[in-house]
């Protein structure tokens, strides 16, 4: 072995002279790392046009299809139906979007990207918090798209701007809590395709067996029992209340309680899975 190094040092790869001696990342570092991770998850969209379609075209298509295909039959007129269904469409779309947390995480785990992140001197939770922050931005984008398309088609917001803000807030609060299920799914499945299959197997019945698209009274009794407590129904009703008027408080509280329940059950499970399975 030779300690006599005659090869000149390459400035691009020469090691840093002195290492930072901190024991862990500071909260400020965590915040900035999370923002960087969120930036990454948004930039990914640029190179993956199909995701942009998912985020924009798909909600638009849902609005158009439901309004013009089912609207007359379910709501009597497309106009009346849109006033009813847009809140439901927003709720359904928001739940579908939470799948991104799982597919993104599963891809990172599968491709080894997560290992790379974990080998960096960054906050342990930054890859996760960054992804979730990115997913919140996706939620907001999609919500804006839905509202704009709705308004173009004749949807009338009859409440105050404050109530609309409340709708945004409720949506973000619920999806944040709900995304723990998505984190757990992503870690356990470790494969984006499996995530899609498992995820939509749960989300389709969950979102459609609700009052998102059709009023509860039109359903058989056994289904009504579930539909009336389904978190999607409660969030849809709360959003309707916040956008076009109607009871808000009870529905919003029910939605938040559901969110808290999801977080309480799946949060610890997801953290456990991240600790032991990654």
């Amino acid at each position, binding site marked *: *072995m030779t*300690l*006599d*190094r005659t*090869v*000149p*040092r*390459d400035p*691009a*790869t*020469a*090691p*840093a002279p002195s*290492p*930072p*001696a*901190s*024991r*862990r*990342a500071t909260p400020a*570092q965590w915040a*900035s*790392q999370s923002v*960087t*991770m969120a*930036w*990454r998850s948004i*930039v*990914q969209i640029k*190179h*993956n046009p199909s995701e942009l379609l998912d985020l924009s075209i798909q909600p638009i298509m849902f609005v158009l299809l439901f309004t013009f295909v089912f609207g007359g039959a379910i709501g009597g007129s497309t106009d009346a139906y849109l006033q009813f269904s847009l809140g439901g469409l927003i709720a359904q779309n928001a739940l579908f979007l939470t799948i991104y947390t799982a597919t993104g995480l599963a891809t*990172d785990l599968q*491709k*080894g*990207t*997560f*290992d*790379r*992140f*974990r*080998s*960096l*001197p*960054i906050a342990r939770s*930054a890859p996760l918090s960054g992804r979730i922050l990115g997913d919140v931005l996706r939620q907001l984008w999609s919500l804006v798209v839905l509202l704009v398309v709705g308004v173009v088609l004749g949807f009338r917001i009859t409440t105050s701007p404050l109530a609309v803000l409340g709708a945004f807030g409720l949506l973000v609060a619920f999806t944040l809590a709900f995304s723990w299920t998505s984190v757990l799914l992503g870690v356990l499945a470790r494969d984006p395709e499996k995530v899609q299959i498992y995820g939509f197997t749960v989300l389709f019945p969950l979102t459609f067996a609700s009052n998102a698209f059709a009023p509860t009274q039109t359903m058989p009794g056994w289904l009504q029992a579930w539909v009336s407590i389904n978190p999607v129904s409660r969030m849809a009703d709360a959003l309707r209340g916040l956008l076009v008027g109607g009871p808000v408080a009870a529905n919003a509280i029910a939605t938040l309680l559901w969110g808290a329940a999801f977080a309480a059950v799946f949060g610890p499970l997801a953290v456990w899975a991240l600790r032991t399975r990654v």
Partner: protein
Amino acid sequence: MTLSDPRGTVEDVPPAIEADGLVKRFGATTALAGASLAAAEGTVLGVLGPNGAGKTTATRVLATLLAPDEGRATVGGYDVVTEPHRVRSLIGLTGQYAGVDEALTGTENLVLIARLLGQPRPAARARAAELLEQFGLTDAAGRAARTYSGGMRRRLDLAASLVGRPRILFLDEPTTGLDPASRNELWDMVRSLVGGGVTVLLTTQYLDEADQLADDIVVIDRGTVVATGTPDELKARAGAAVLQMRPAHGEQLEVVRRVAGELAGATPTVEHGTVAVPAADEALMPAVVRRLDYVGVRLAELTLRRATLDEVFLALTGHRAVDVATADQTDVRETA
């Protein structure tokens, strides 16, 4: 530091990487069964072993991704279990499966790491450009990594692990799956890194790769270290080259085996009508040819080739290098 002190010896410098009795189990599988190793600062440690030997597991433990069940390890003087953040600030990791984000461009991948490491945006961009240039990726800098070839992806991955100018670099089978040209390029990059003072731990399944790059080699098998030494020491023990002889007449196989064994001072293996024997000495081939000619054996084939990992294993451990990963799968299928 001692590196710049001409009288300095290896003993004066604490090892950059040191592992002592590492044990890691996955359910019924023991991936590491008390592995110990050490790499002196500024050197390359080659961890050589067949598929399933525990190379990736060892790398992951040392890179703080996995906590060992028993044993301890320090990297850059810091304990990997109790001070992982400090260890991470010293290391770079290129895992067995490229960790680049395929949905991002080459530039974005590197800027991401630089930003995570706290570099301001302009510095991060400059660092990314510098590394892309160095790794011959400037032309592909704006393309999504998904469109890269295997070799380009490997290079980007290596570049990503260098963003923070690590003092210690872990490379887990960096050339597996690469064509010979890309492999040689990567070897040159590793050499230039080490020239710059970086300590490298490199795992490989190929003896010649370890031979080419490593100052010291640790041979591992089923989670334990079965041999340690410099490439020359190991080759001296195991025979770097193998002399292979196939007699024109099958019935003379036994004569060839006896002659080869006697002259080489080692036990030959006989397979498919061919005798193979470790050739530690260059003089073995002419000696064998002369002797066989003298006893009237005509050879249909005579080759001097590099020893395979399997043969090194046989010589070092007395058993063949079994592919534990596949062996395990067979076990599972059998017991299922």
